[in-house]
């Protein structure tokens, strides 16, 4: 069976309904989706305000790494059928969805929730995308803390 795998970096508004339709098959009855949005107000750790974020990506490598994340999901949750991983880049304001990870399967007790969670965790580890935060008092690059290992 050839299941749909969608991965892309885009500057366009994310369309969750269209994305879900692209990974819905006759055999899928359940989808788990993670959406990330720009926070205007952050309370945890270092409380601060955000005016906007500016995202950039190393597009061809990012898309290759998204494909790799999808393959890792398929190895870990073979019951997952459709997978979509989409990151929006550019200048994004609070409340705007920036990233979508969606997994479909026949039933909801097949690991779809864990698969979507794994997808966003891995995206934040290995997919080459960065964001710079513009706040009331200036700008800061946000850097992750994951160092990929050989083979990742």
């Amino acid at each position, binding site marked *: 069976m050839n299941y749909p795998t969608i991965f892309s970096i885009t500057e366009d508004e994310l369309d969750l309904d269209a994305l879900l339709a692209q990974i819905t098959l006759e055999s899928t009855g359940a989808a788990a989706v993670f959406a*990330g949005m720009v926070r205007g107000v952050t309370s945890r750790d270092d409380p601060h305000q955000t005016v906007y974020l500016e*995202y*950039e*990506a*190393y597009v*061809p*490598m*990012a898309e*290759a790494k998204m494909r790799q994340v999808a393959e890792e999901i398929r190895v870990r949750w073979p019951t997952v059928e459709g997978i979509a991983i989409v*990151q929006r880049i550019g200048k994004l304001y609070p409340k705007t969805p*920036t*990233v979508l990870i969606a997994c479909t399967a026949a039933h909801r007790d097949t690991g779809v929730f864990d698969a979507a969670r794994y997808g*966003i965790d891995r*995206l*934040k*580890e*290995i*997919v*080459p*995308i*960065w*964001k*710079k935060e513009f706040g009331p008092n200036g700008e800061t*690059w*946000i*850097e*992750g*803390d*994951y*160092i*990929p290992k*050989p083979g*990742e």
Partner: protein
Amino acid sequence: MNKVKILFFATLRERAGVRSVEIEIPTGTTAKSLKEILAADYPNLSPSMQSVLFSINQEYAFDDAVIPENAEIALFPPVSGG
């Protein structure tokens, strides 16, 4: 000699002051040596060089990797997508 393309992203791009550059390096140069060459060419990069990630032809690569002919190299900080 081996002509390679170097891409810089995020903090590395800002510190280098360029998005990409093409340079010639000796055949057999390793990732570690190329980072040293770049640190010499772009002294502003040095604060980022300790935690820099390095890719060869869009795959993560490590210090002892040998740079292939006409490679596309990228240097960037740990990722922060999402």
